[in-house]
């Protein structure tokens, strides 16, 4: 048997879902009796059959990828509950196995997949999609690229209607139907304590987490997931603020972005200039605008 054939054969078995009890399945469609299948390429030894040796790798694969999703999506886990999250994760990983050298990207397709498979998204698909998107944005913001930032004085010196500003690549702009930022912070808060808790204590925390999820009522929010001193933060944005930032991200000029931001806005016209000035001051203080992009535009 050639190298490629052995690897295809083994990978197929390793990535086959485990049976209940975390054992390798005895029969699998397309592979038949797994004891025979394993014996065709794996040697037994004096303690383990070919099947049992292959099973070690089958288990390791599933435990590793399931643990990675659990670590990356504690909020979705709180929304769905442990059992449903586990079955959803298995279904997702069968459809969307890792195609990246890093486990960081394992959940990249999860939101889209949940949108196409509502049966795995729990009672409220919108909530599941929102929390999934926030958790992936958190990952992207954590290790996204930083470019040299424009200081507030740079911006005021350059300000003009046709100016194009670019946002830092790590900033994620998101709109939600649920206040999932509060939910995720509550979940993290309870998980942080759980590491040091006794069993009884962790049960109490689990109940708190479930209550936090159950209490969540729909409310449209606009959010920037950003970094300060390399730590990720969530910042709520006004609707207009969000629209301006999104327009700037899409490459619109400053004046176009402001027009878009206040289209259909309820903010009185007389208050708009002050609001814009305050927002820009704040964004610049947080270092959200990039110097490198600025130079390119001016050139």
């Amino acid at each position, binding site marked *: 048997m050639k190298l490629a054939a052995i*690897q295809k054969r083994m*990978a197929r078995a390793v990535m086959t879902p485990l049976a209940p009890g975390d054992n390798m399945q005895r029969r699998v469609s397309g592979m038949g009796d797994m004891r025979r299948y394993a014996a065709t390429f794996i040697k037994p030894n004096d303690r383990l059959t070919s099947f049992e040796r292959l099973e070690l790798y089958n288990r390791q694969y599933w435990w590793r990828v399931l643990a990675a999703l659990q670590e990356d999506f504690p909020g979705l886990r709180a929304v769905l509950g442990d059992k449903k999250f586990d079955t959803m994760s298995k279904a997702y990983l069968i459809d969307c196995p890792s195609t990246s050298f890093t486990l960081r990207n394992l959940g990249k397709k999860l939101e889209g997949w949940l949108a196409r498979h509502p049966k795995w998204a729990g009672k409220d698909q919108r909530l599941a999609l929102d929390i999934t998107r926030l958790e992936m944005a958190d990952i992207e913001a954590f290790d*996204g690229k930083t470019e040299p930032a424009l200081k507030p004085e740079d911006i005021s010196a350059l300000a003009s209607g046709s100016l194009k500003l670019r946002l830092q690549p790590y900033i994620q702009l998101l709109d939600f139907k649920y206040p999932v930022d509060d939910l995720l912070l509550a979940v993290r808060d309870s998980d942080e304590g759980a590491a040091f808790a006794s069993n009884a204590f962790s049960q109490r925390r689990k109940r708190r987490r479930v209550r936090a999820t159950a209490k969540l009522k729909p409310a449209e929010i606009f959010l920037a997931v950003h970094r300060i001193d390399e730590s990720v933060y969530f910042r709520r944005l006004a609707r207009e603020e969000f629209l301006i930032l999104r327009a700037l991200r899409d490459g619109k000029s400053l004046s176009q972005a402001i027009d878009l931001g206040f289209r259909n806005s309820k903010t009185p016209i007389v208050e708009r200039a002050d609001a814009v000035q305050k927002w820009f001051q704040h964004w610049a203080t947080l270092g959200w605008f990039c110097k490198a992009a600025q130079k390119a535009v001016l050139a």
Partner: protein
Amino acid sequence: MPANRFNGFTDYGIGIGLRSPHYDHILTKKPVCDWFEIISENFMIDGGRPLRILDQILEQYRVVQHGVSMYFGSADRLDREHLRRLKELVRRTKTPWLSDHLCWGSVDGRYTHDLLPMPYTFEAAKITAQKVRAVRDFLEIPVAVENVSSYAEFHVSEMTEWEFLNEVVERADCGILLDVNNIYVSSQNHNFDPLEYVNGIPAERVAQIHIAGHSKYRKYILDTHDHPVIDPVWKLYERAIQRVGHTATLLEWDDSIPSFREVHDEALKANKFLASALLKKAV
């Protein structure tokens, strides 16, 4: 062989794996540690805290890169995006050499994120060596391949594991990262004499040595990196040092990670064997 062309002619001593629970201790207390090994993939990112910490570490310590997903032994083609990001990191760390495992883990672009065992065939050795050469040529630094722990053997194998390792490194003209814990784990799982393995490898190609702990189960041993090094592994290390001389040594501890001091103290036990190697050289 403290310095050779496979470790960039360096003479590193005892290091430990750089792990996040120790970041604060390292950055605030600045403990003496000869060098740190990083998992390359943890830093093959665009920005953020991991890279900032790495830069702070690089200001004060020597760092060597160790990868977990190059999959030299995979029949798949090399992942160009992986290589591009790896080269960026190599430029950042200025690692004198780079290591990854003699294994495979992806098929048709789907990743298992595991270090899967190789069939020990001449065809596999040829494919693997070609990829090692391609990676070294692209990265322009010495590359060392590490023997993995394994739990399965293949019917098609045509040689022992150490013969396969020799076949690959001779064809690729590359170095070896000799993991003596992995040799011990595999010897127990596959019933071979680990000393025969240590005695069978080309000593002049060893760029670095790994030591670690593991977990013993009723019918097999798993390479878990969550315990101190056991005596039989120290004995293998002693034999390896007798053969290869004073060589860069690294303790891996990846799960249930104790304090920096505990991990470092465990690593420093290697000094006993390194000192006798130095003494022998002096005599």
